[in-house]
């Protein structure tokens, strides 16, 4: 039980928030109206109120008619500022571009397009993921008159799987900072989150003898399957692994013999002793590594299997299997 649950007030607050957010409609496009834009005075707003009170008392006590004028003009500006502040968000249309699949734990962005159908610009609109807590989560933008602006909101998926995009919030304090106007938006788009690849994975597992092939001891048992060997004179150029060459500064060939005899299976059962999530995260790291090496690889998970193959589509298919299993 965490600390928030122990404090009855914050517990109730949390429950209320959950209930409130669950009521919000799910939509990738939202047009802000009076019904979904909220407004409250800020601390400087209360400070301005106190200032007005002191100015008024000063004017009364010293019988300054010009002081009354100043106080009331300032109060009038405060009232107008409240409407301007609310109007900055009201009538704005926000549209979320469907996000690409991401690895868990990596920082990425959600692209939101803001459309202003008003003949005057809207200044100082900030967007953020609702529950993000870090300081610089806000992205600020102005939306030109009768125009659009595009905002990249920082977003860090924590868990793998298919998730709904987290609720977003937009806020403005323009023009005087005396009021905070905000909205909460639940987009309906879903984002596929792959497991977080292990940071320092062990080498790829050894290959398995190809079914139906001749089972012999491995000729060059280096203890690891990387499917490559140093270049030998006479190797055809198409066997050269150019990616590796670029890194190692020596010619490396694909070990066609090994590749013919063995095939690489990334198996859930052989991905270490750790718990499921760690295993998935290791498998994800292997998939990324095998794809980088240009190998053929297959994925074996409890209950499903991805046949061997290579290429971007194959990698995506494997990662998707890892994300959703």
């Amino acid at each position, binding site marked *: 039980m965490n600390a928030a649950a122990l404090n009855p007030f914050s517990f109730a607050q949390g429950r209320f928030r959950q209930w409130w957010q669950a009521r919000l409609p799910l939509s990738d496009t939202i047009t802000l*109206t*009076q019904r979904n834009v909220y407004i409250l005075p800020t601390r*400087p707003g209360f*400070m*301005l109120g106190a*200032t007005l009170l*002191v*100015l008024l*008392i*000063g*004017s*009364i*006590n*010293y*019988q*300054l*008619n*010009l*002081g*009354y*004028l*100043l*106080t*009331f*003009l*300032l*109060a*009038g*500006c*405060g*009232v*107008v*500022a409240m409407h*301007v502040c609310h109007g900055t968000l009201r009538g704005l249309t926000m549209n979320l571009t469907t996000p690409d699949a991401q690895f868990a734990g990596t920082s990425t962005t959600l692209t939101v397009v803001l459309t202003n159908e008003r003949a005057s*610009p809207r*200044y*100082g609109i*900030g967007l953020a993921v609702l529950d993000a807590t870090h300081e610089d989560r806000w992205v*600020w*933008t*102005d939306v030109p008159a009768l125009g659009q602006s595009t905002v990249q909101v920082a977003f860090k998926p924590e868990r793998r799987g298919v998730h709904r995009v987290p609720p977003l919030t937009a806020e403005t*304090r*323009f*023009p*005087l*900072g005396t009021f905070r106007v905000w909205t909460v938006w639940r987009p309906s788009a879903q984002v596929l989150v792959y497991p977080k690849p292990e940071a320092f994975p062990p080498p790829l597992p050894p290959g398995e003898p190809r079914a139906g092939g001749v089972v012999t001891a491995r000729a060059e048992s280096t203890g690891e399957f990387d499917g490559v060997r140093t270049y030998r004179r006479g190797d055809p150029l198409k066997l050269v692994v150019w990616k590796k060459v670029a890194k190692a500064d020596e010619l490396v060939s694909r070990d066609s013999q090994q590749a013919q005899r063995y095939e690489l299976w990334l198996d859930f059962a052989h991905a270490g002793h750790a718990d499921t999530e760690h295993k998935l995260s290791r498998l994800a790291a292997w998939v990324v590594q095998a794809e980088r090496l240009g190998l053929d690889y297959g994925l074996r998970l409890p209950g499903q299997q991805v046949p061997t193959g290579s290429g971007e589509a194959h990698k995506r298919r494997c990662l998707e299997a890892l994300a959703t299993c």
Partner: protein
Amino acid sequence: MLTARRSGPDDSAFARQAAPVAALLRLHSLPRDGRDTLFLLLVIGWIILPQVGNLPLWCSALAGALLVWRGWLAVSSRPLPGHWWVLGLLTVALIATYLSYRTLLGRDAGVTLIVTLLALKTLELRARRDIFVVFFLGFFTMLTNFFFSQSLATAAAMLLALLGLLTALVNAHMPVGKPPLSHAARTAAWMTLLGAPVMAALFVLFPRIGPLWGIPSDAMSGRSGLSATMQVGNLASLVLDESIAMRVKFEGRAPPQNELYFRGPVLSTFDGREWRPLQSRLGSRSLLALLGGTAQLQVMGEAVRYEVTLEPNNRPWILVLDAAATPPVVPGFETVMTSELLWVANRPVTDLLRYRAESHTSFRHGPSSIAALPPEYLELPAGFNPRTLALAAQMRSDPNLAGRGPQALVQAALDRLRTGNYHYTLDPGVFGRDSADEFWFDRREGFCEHIASAFVVLMRAMGIPARLVTGYQGGELNGVDGFWIVRQSDAHAWTEVWLAGRGWVRVDPTSAVAPGRTGSFQRLQAPRGVIASAFGSVSPNLAAGLRSAWEALNNSWNQWVLNYTQSKQLDMLKNLGFTTPSWEDLSYVLLALVVALALTGAAWTLWERRQHDPWLRLLMRVRKRLAHAGIELPPTTPPRQIATVVTQRFGEPGRAMADWLLKLESQRYARHPDVSLASLQREFKQLAWPTP
């Protein structure tokens, strides 16, 4: 394009001109932080500037230096000084304020502190909170300006300052990029413009109530009214207090208005700053000498009988018309007359007091020989007003006046007031140490206190016994009940000079400066400024026109803004139909206005939420009619599709409807629609829509 360059001295002039231009260009290329800070500093400087004359020299210098220093830090993008700097400077300022005023409380010390704090806080612009503190201190400083002047010019300057502060505040809430300040300025101007009606409504309707609690005595010194002493020149402006001082009902005909001098305390002792009554210096002298006045008063002509209702003023003075030889009949009080003709009661008037009195407007009083006159009537403080003394010596030695006696000298002084470009104003600014010198030679304007005080100083300097009399002058006749209403704003100061053989003679120098001040209701003569003088030499007609426009403007400013008091508010309520208005009624009107506005806003929101595009509304009506006939269509169905549905469903009878729908479509989408929406609406009503 400049094709040929001139040589010679013009080059250096060009270079001199180029330097500020380069600085401006550099200003333009400053990073956003620097530019915003500089702008804010400029606005703060503008707010403090009108105060400079009223602040101690060290305070103005410190504030100026701090602002310049902060500006330099902003331009050169240097870090701000540490907290110890600010704390140290604050301590120094507190000590200096205490040394200047011997207190940290009160109005003047408070103003000094606020200005210093505002300048100091600019050194601490770190977080958003600091910026707000600067803004709110700025608003206070603007208010403190009004302690010293409430003139139209001050109002204009502070309006500009308010726009500047709002611009800076709006700009601080535009977090993206480096938007030009003009964008923020436009928003600020719009907000001020839209806020103005709120201001007007609140200004008119907010109940004017008295001070909420006792405040330092300097607070009320700017108001007209009577007091036991009079400081000359420390009031920059006079607020006319419209509250009623007394009501007078004459039996028979009232004397002419310019003879209605209600006598209050007489001030005869002057120390350079302050006028005090004679007795305060007499101390141990016998009271009898003072109270022997009655014997020296001889009244002439017919008596004026009247009844006075005096508002409580917490003073023991029984105000009567100059001069009452017989004691006024004051129930419950004992009265006695001083040698200066003031009737004094045995206790202060704390409740509404009604009394009857009998006065003679023509009278003589005072000793017949100068030897019987106390010497105080000729005393002047040493070392004050040297130029007035020189003027007195010059007038006495003037061959035109020599040998014609004191009366000619008095007349010469009055002529000087009449013809020497002297003006009556309620807003003359604060006078310095030599108030008479400043009035006679520098400012040449002031209200009755300045004029009377300067006049008495000149008289005494010429060897003519003189004293200052305060009281009320004039009043207005209420045509309905026949009462004369004397308001606090009718408070006046005039002088009396002693002339051999005539005794004390009343001289009202204010009427020489502003003939309208006494005798009619006009209180203010328009000041003649630099611009007006400049125009005067160009085109006299234009100048006269401008001057009367300026006078009218200034007068309405005085009448409608500075002079807008509770009595005017209640008058306005009477015009609105309240029979017995009170300040609670003002609150009700204000409340009603707020409620009406809120309801209007709600109604507008409701209307806005509804579909109010006429074309779409027409389409919606079509859908409704069809829904009646059992044809449910989604709200997104375009007219052409509806037309198809209608022809399919009704065949030939639906043809007219389908044509109409196609016309509706072309009205919206054709490049040059040949049919108006109004005619379509008419046709809509004539169409035979299907019935279920």
